[in-house]
């Protein structure tokens, strides 16, 4: 599904604008990465898409249909978000939490169908948390909790997947596993949008990079084109030099390279 952000602005109070007339289009089959300084509005954008916050102006639509027109159930079947701020009930088991993702497909009498169970089981295997299934959420480490959240997201099986800093708390092996998974979802035809803070990972995985700065879209396009030393200077205020070859490179602070 195509997610379209059309001229969207948002401000908490009249004078403090977080986003100013942002327009973006997210097409299926692509892995988008959003980068930007802390507090520049990346998470706010996700909150606006998920209708956690009200738009000050503009419109957000999925496949042409305005998001406001969706019921909560329809929206949950179309777009899902992986977020740090989600509180985890201590006494809930991992298995139950992962099953929650299926909520929008269930009815009063059908809360645990064969299909639901198979999908949830698959998701847990994918995120390698099957052996944790009966453990309580409070007994998990940060990384395990993050993988559990991702598993819950997978069971929701939405066409649009939003990932807010998905690599947080994860060790390196799991970080790349998750990013590979994101890429795989994109190749299956889903629309995957991730907020990442690691520039290298962004460059390696993104089909399309979007830089947010000063309430606006600073630049968007292919990674090599967008992630440049100029951009690092303007947006992140760091003097960098690119080190690497045409395919792969990293941006290192200049003063570290003698």
């Amino acid at each position, binding site marked *: 599904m195509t997610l379209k952000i059309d001229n969207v602005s948002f401000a908490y109070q009249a004078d403090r604008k977080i986003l100013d007339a942002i327009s973006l289009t997210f097409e299926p089959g692509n892995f988008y990465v959003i980068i930007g300084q802390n507090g520049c509005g990346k998470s706010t954008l996700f909150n606006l898409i*998920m209708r*956690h916050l009200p738009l000050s102006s503009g419109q957000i639509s999925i496949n042409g249909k305005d998001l406001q027109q969706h019921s*909560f159930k329809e929206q*949950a079947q179309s777009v899902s978000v992986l977020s740090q701020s*989600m509180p985890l*009930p201590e006494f809930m088991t991992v*298995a139950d939490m992962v099953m*929650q993702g299926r909520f*929008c497909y269930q009815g009063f009498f059908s*809360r645990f169908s064969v299909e639901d169970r198979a999908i949830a089981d698959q998701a847990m295997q994918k995120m390698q948390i099957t052996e944790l299934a009966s453990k309580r959420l409070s007994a998990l480490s940060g990384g395990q909790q993050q993988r559990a959240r991702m598993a819950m997201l997978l069971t929701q099986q939405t066409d649009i997947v939003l990932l807010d800093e998905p690599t947080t708390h994860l060790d390196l092996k799991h970080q790349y596993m998750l990013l590979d998974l994101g890429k795989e979802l994109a190749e299956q035809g889903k629309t995957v949008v991730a907020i990442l803070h690691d520039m290298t990972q962004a460059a390696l995985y993104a089909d399309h990079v979007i830089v947010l700065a000063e309430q606006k879209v600073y630049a968007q396009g292919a990674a090599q084109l967008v992630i440049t030393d100029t951009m690092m200077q303007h947006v992140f205020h760091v003097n960098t030099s690119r080190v690497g070859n045409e395919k792969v490179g990293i941006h290192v602070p200049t003063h570290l390279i003698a």
Partner: protein
Amino acid sequence: MNIFDNQNMIISPSKGISLPLYKRTFLVLCALVVVLSVSFICSLKLGSVSVSWADVYAVIGFDMALNDATSTIYELRLPRIMGAISAGALMALSGYLLQTAARNALADPGVLGLSDGAALSVIVLYVVSLQVSLTTSIIASFFGVFVTALVVLWFVHKNLNGTFIVLVGIAVGAVLSAFSDMLLSSVTIEDMAFLMAFLSGSFLSLDLASASFLSIWMALIISVFLLLSRYINPLNFGYQHAMSLGVDAKKYYIFIIILAVFAMAPVIALVGSIGFIGLIATFLAKNIIGYRGTELGIVSMLLGAIMTLWADTLGRTLFAPIMINAGVFIALIGALFFIIMTRYIVRQ
């Protein structure tokens, strides 16, 4: 066979229906129902007036032949027992729902001062008017709960799930019970003894009619709860993330709070200010069966009913012929529990 099939019994009479039930919960439920039934029967037997097992069987078998013993049971004990079970279940459910709404394991009608507010309204009613009917006392109770809830919310609307709401709730409860004390100590009316007992919660004055009402009310509330219980699981992830999962969070949070209020108000109107049942029952239930919206609610209710029943029965029998109010027992256990819980929670 995956982990879900291993841990759960699936109730699936036909293709479109599939309801999960933890195998462990099933066992716990069976055990609790047995305990409740046994407690019920024992409570009929125990008391300062001695009654034989034959009399108990007669009552249970609806044998209408009345002798001294069976009439004791019918008129004095049966109402108290029915009342205690219903009240325990309702207050436990109320506490559980409040905890879901506030996402705070310490929320409970007693802790948040709601019981004190409702009790004060009812006491004022008794002091002011000569004729107090069941309906008016329940209306007064509702009023008390609503107003107290508004006051507490006004203080803490920004920060529902810390320990601050507990402090405010206790402080508000203290104000309201100070007013109740002052009111009662300064007036002399017909029903002084009743009202003094009312302040701490007592099943002494329940007659068969009010006990039946409470039982029917309990059945009603349980039915509504079962309808709503599906939404409780997602609501635990917070307002925003419940919405992401597909729940109209605002609507259902309000439903849950309203159901909590409807569950507690008639209880307080008839029995007085009891609290902490929800706190204790839900905590125990969570530790026994983990967290699943519907199942946790049902187990909490059973635990609450058993607890309250025994509080009343022990109060009647332990120090016979002295009768101790059930509410006093519960307040004592509640206070102890609360202290233990705060240490446990803050240690996280």
